[in-house]
Each structure stands twice: as C-alpha cells, then as structure tokens.
C-alpha cells in the first residue's frame, strides 16, 4: 500500500494536476462563499470541463472543488449569517455571533483550521480503510450485491427524504428513469416510444445539472426581491481578534479530533450526510464542553466541532462509493457519475484495475488540504470580495455555463432539452417534498442492480431459495429493516419535539396577550 501511496504522490506532483487542484480550490471557495450556490452546484458546472483532461487531473480538480466548496460555505455563514449549505447552519450561529463582536477573522481562521484538519484526517482514514474493505467486498457475488444495492436504496431513500415514502418514491422514480433506452442486458428498447434520441437513455450530465443545479437558480429567481447582502470582512483594532493563536487552537484540538471521528463515521454510512455529522458533533461538543453556555453565542469550540465534522464527511463519504459502489450522498453520487464518465467504475475492482489513478487521487486529496490551507488563509479578503458579486451577474453566467455544460456532453441540442426538462422536474420535486439527490442515486445504481440481478438469476435458476442461502443476504435484510425502523422512530421523535415546541410557543403568545 505504501508503494502505491508514494506512486500516487509521484503522479500527482506534476504541473497539470497541481494547476487543476489550485483552479478547483479557487472555484470551490468562490462558489461555496456565494450565498445560493453550493459545492454540488460548482461540481456539476465544472464537471463537463473535466471530460477532456486526464482522469487524475479531472477527478482531483472536482474533489478540490468539493472540499473547497464545503469550506467556502462557512465564509458566507460567518460573515452574513447565510449558510451556503445546511451543514454550515451551526457555523453561521457561532461564526456570525463572533463577527458581530468584531472577531470575524478569528471565526474564519478556526473554521479553516478545523475544516482542513477534519478533511485531512478523514482522508487518511479513507486511504487506509478503503483498500482493505475493497478486498473483503471482492468476495461478494451477484446475489450479495443485489441485497447490498437493495439495502443502499432502502437506507438512502428512508434517511434522506422528507418522509420515508417520499424518499423511497424519489429513489424508485430515479430507477424508472434509468431504465429508459436500450437495456444493457437484453438489448431491448424500453420506454422510447419510437423516439430514436431516447435509445441511449437520458444523458447523465444535463440531467444532473437540471436536477441538482438549475432548481437553485430558479429558487434565486423566485426570491429575487430579497435584498442582496454584501460580504465584508471587517478588521478589529485588536490583532488577537483577527486570528486564532496556537493556544486557542490547542484548546479545541480535542474537540476537532472527536468531531472528525464523528464526521468520518457518519460520512461512511450511506444517506446521513454532512448536516447530520455537524449536528451530532456540535451536540457532543456542547455536552462535554466546560463552557456550554457560549454555544450559539460565538463559541470557537462550536465552530471547530461543526466545521471539522462536516468536512470530515468529504473524505469518508467516498468509502462506500469506492469500496461498494454505493454513493452515500448527493455529492458522492455526482462524483460517482464523474468517475464513470472518466472510465473508472467505482467499486472494489478500482483498486486493482486503476491502482495508479486511485492512489494519485488520494494523494491529490491530501495535497488539496495543504493548498486549501494556504490559498484560503492568504486570500480571505479576495474571496469575500469576489463572492460579494451581485446575483444579477452570477446567475446569468451560471445559466450559460449550465447550457454549455449540457451541450458539451454530447455536442447536440437534445441534451439541452434534457437539461430544461429535468430542471422543471427537479424544481417540481423540491416543491412536493421529493428528494432530487435520492433520485440521482436511484438513477446511477439501477444499471448495477439490473446487471447483478440478471447474473444472480442465472446462478440460482429456479431454486429461488438460494437467494437467501448466503448469510450476507440476511444481514442486509436485517440492516434494511433496522434502518427503516430507526428512521421512522427518528422522524416521529423529531416531529413530536417540533409539535411540543409549537404548542409552547402558542401558549406563551396566548399568555402574553
């Protein structure tokens, strides 16, 4: 393994990959810092640009956009209390409180240091854990893979949706759309209705941009009358308020380590994502803190916990994707698409078939952390100025990039039509509470399910009981039931808490009147 890691570093330490990483970091921080644009949007827009470069450059650039984008979200969260992503909600609470106290520099510093530490440690876990897991998962045959994929669908659908039926419906709709076009197993054309353009199915990139990116643009257009907030980095007269010193960093280092552990664990489980990790780590940090009363009112420890946990998810969310072909969240699904476009099929075989590439990508991951630290630290002022651009300059450009990106996929206008159709579908899904990310995961994983199901049927023939002969089948069935049950309990509990809070508020208002 160490030879592979060293080989990875020798591949990544070239002009192309390094320029790709630097460009990715700039794009990621800027896009992440602009309110209304998320990391996933940045990756989807940059994705078509990477089609024509080497996979090592392309994938590392996308991963740099991802990591920097997650960090960039904390800039707008801290400066104007507008989290770029749900995961930055807690950072916004404490970060903005510090900004109001004139300590924006300190908040940005701790956010950066904990983000980079969390990311780097999670990346190390990814590097050392992924390959051994892939060796174990290689033992799985088609029957086990069918149950594994069904488990993934159930877990992601039930945990990520607004409600369990809505999450699962999003997943099965994605599966249905994946079956349009020529069947890879039988060669039959399905749901094409005689339209030859549909024979190849829906092109992935325009569909992805339409489902995940364009609804954000539409949301901005809908809320266009809301006033624009300029990002501004104010400096305090006291230099200690503008930076974090080593003593302060050391005092929160234990929190960072613990939160990174939580983030890494949550990220490795499919369906939970960075918001869950941030909330869990923040809760744990508050519980064990010596100054829990400061949380929510400008706690450096709170920012450190939330940021290290949500950034640790970046690395560990790739563990299920690279070892089991299961993208854990929307960004991992998008990255899985990028891997497939570059001819790399995520799964245990990737470590044997593309050893040099995958370890170069891992090395790129670590290098990204290093560059992110230096670029972000030296350019706070620059990034806040660029991210302050008015939305009437940003969103027309995003529209054109989306158009060009969709066209780039197949160099025809039909792909742009797919973009428009899926923009409407994606926005409609959000309105009715369906989850577009789960839809995409269903879309990506269905061809794998169909292929493995076909092979499994060929193995068992008419002895269907053989499907349940492997202990793995029972383990995955039990896990699926457990996750659905625990998800139901979790949702019931959160809705009862919400209801009691509402009742209390109504009572208080009644009392006041």
């Amino acid at each position: 393994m160490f030879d592979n890691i060293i080989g990875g570093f020798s591949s990544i330490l070239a002009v192309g990959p390094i320029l790709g990483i630097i460009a990715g970091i700039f794009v990621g921080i800027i896009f992440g810092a602009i309110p209304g644009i998320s990391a996933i949007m940045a990756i989807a827009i940059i994705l078509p640009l990477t089609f024509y470069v080497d996979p090592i450059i392309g994938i590392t650039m996308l991963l740099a956009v991802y990591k920097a984008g997650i960090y960039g979200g904390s800039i707008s969260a801290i400066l104007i209390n507008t989290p770029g992503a749900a995961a930055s909600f807690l950072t916004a609470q404490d970060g903005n409180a510090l900004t109001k106290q004139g300590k924006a520099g300190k908040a940005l510093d701790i956010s950066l240091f904990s983000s980079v530490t969390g990311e780097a440690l999670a990346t190390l876990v990814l590097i050392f854990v992924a390959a051994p897991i892939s060796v174990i998962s290689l033992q799985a045959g088609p029957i086990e893979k069918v149950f594994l994929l069904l488990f993934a669908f159930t877990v992601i659908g039930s945990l990520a949706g607004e409600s369990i039926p809505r999450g699962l419906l999003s997943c099965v709709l994605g599966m249905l759309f994946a079956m349009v076009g020529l069947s890879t197993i039988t060669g039959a054309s399905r749901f094409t209705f005689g339209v030859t353009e549909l024979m190849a199915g829906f092109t992935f990139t325009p569909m992805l941009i339409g489902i995940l990116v364009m609804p954000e643009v539409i949301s901005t257009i809908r809320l266009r009358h809301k006033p624009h907030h300029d990002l501004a980095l104010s400096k305090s007269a006291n230099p200690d308020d503008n930076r974090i010193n080593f003593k302060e960093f050391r005092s929160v280092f234990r929190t960072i380590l613990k939160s990174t552990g939580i983030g890494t664990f949550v990220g490795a489980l499919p369906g939970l994502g960075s918001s869950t990790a941030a909330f869990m780590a923040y809760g744990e940090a508050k519980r064990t803190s010596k100054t829990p009363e400061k949380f929510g009112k400008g706690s450096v420890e709170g920012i450190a916990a939330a940021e290290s946990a949500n950034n640790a998810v970046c690395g560990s969310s790739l563990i299920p994707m690279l070892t089991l072909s299961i993208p854990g969240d929307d960004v991992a699904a998008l990255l899985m698409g990028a891997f497939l476009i570059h001819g790399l099929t995520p799964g245990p075989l990737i470590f044997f078939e593309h050893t040099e590439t995958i370890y170069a990508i891992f090395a790129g991951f670590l290098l990204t952390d290093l560059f992110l630290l230096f670029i972000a630290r030296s350019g706070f002022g620059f990034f806040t100025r660029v991210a302050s651009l008015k939305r009437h300059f940003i969103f027309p450009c995003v529209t054109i990039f989306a158009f060009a990106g969709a066209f780039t996929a197949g160099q025809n206008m039909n792909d742009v039509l797919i973009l428009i159709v899926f923009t409407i579908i994606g926005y409609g899904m959000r309105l009715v509470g369906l989850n577009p990310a789960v839809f995409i995961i269903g879309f990506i994983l269905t061809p794998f399910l169909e292929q493995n199901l076909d092979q499994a049927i060929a193995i068992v023939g008419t002895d269907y009981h053989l499907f349940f002969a492997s202990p793995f089948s029972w383990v995955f069935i039990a896990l699926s039931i457990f996750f659905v049950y625990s998800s139901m309990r979790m949702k019931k509990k959160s809705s009862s808490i919400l209801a009691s809070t509402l009742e209390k508020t109504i009572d208080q208002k009644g009392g006041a009147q």
Partner: protein
Amino acid sequence: MDRRKVDVVISAILIIVSLIILTNDSLSEGGVETDLGSMFLPRIVACFIIVFSAVIGIQSLLKLSKKARMEDIEKIDLTGFMGVNIYIGTFIFYWFLVPYVGFLLVTPFVMFAIAYLLGGRSWFAMTAVSIITPVLVFYGSSHFLRVFLPTWSLS
C-alpha cells in the same frame, strides 16, 4: 397552495402510469430472451411506485378530508413564480434559437434578460458581462475542449 392537493393529483398520475407499465407489453421492443425479461425490473419498480404513491396520496387525502391544520412544510409558496415562468420561457426560447442564430449572437441577449429579471439595473456592467462571458465560453470551449457551440446557420 396546499401541497396535499398536489400530492393527491401526482399520486393518482403516478399510479396510472405504473398500471400502464404493469399491463402494457408494447413498452419494450426487441431484445433477446432472458430469464428475467426486459420488463421485469421496470414492473417491480412500478409496483413500488404504486405502493409509495398510494401511501403519500392516502395520507394527504385523509388530512384533507379531516380538514387537518396545514403544516408549514405542506404549503407551496407561489411568490415570485411569474419570474420563474419567464426564466423557463426564456430558456426554452434560447434552446430553440441557438441552432439557427448561433450561440454568440443569442447568448448576450439571454444573459441580459436574466440579469434584468434578477433586478440588475447597472446597464454598462450588465452589457459588458453579457458580451464578454459568451465570447470566453465560445472560444474557450472550442480551443481547449474541442466543443463547438452552434454558430449562425440560417443559410
């Protein structure tokens, strides 16, 4: 707008579509014979769509019939939807025009229109961005990516 009513309508549509998938054999054409057949997985998926749509639809229908209090999550806010319609209309018009008029000629107008829709009134800067961005995208994609965006082709 009450999302529960939308749920009922969408659930009904999805159930009808799924029933068509379950009963219509002409949705798949050609292909070789296999143990499973081409429509096995689509039909399994259709069964699940029926189940989940029915659950969502029935829940919403029950809430509507009981006249239960609408939660925040069940309200669809239609504020600003005129702008959304204009944006989608502009995009469809753009898609229609680009193959004939060309990317470089249509895009500045589309960008300017979207900027105006978003409340932009700084005419000089908007014009500059609307002209420079398409030029950069057009030449960047043709030189670096070898992707040739549509050009004027009325002749």
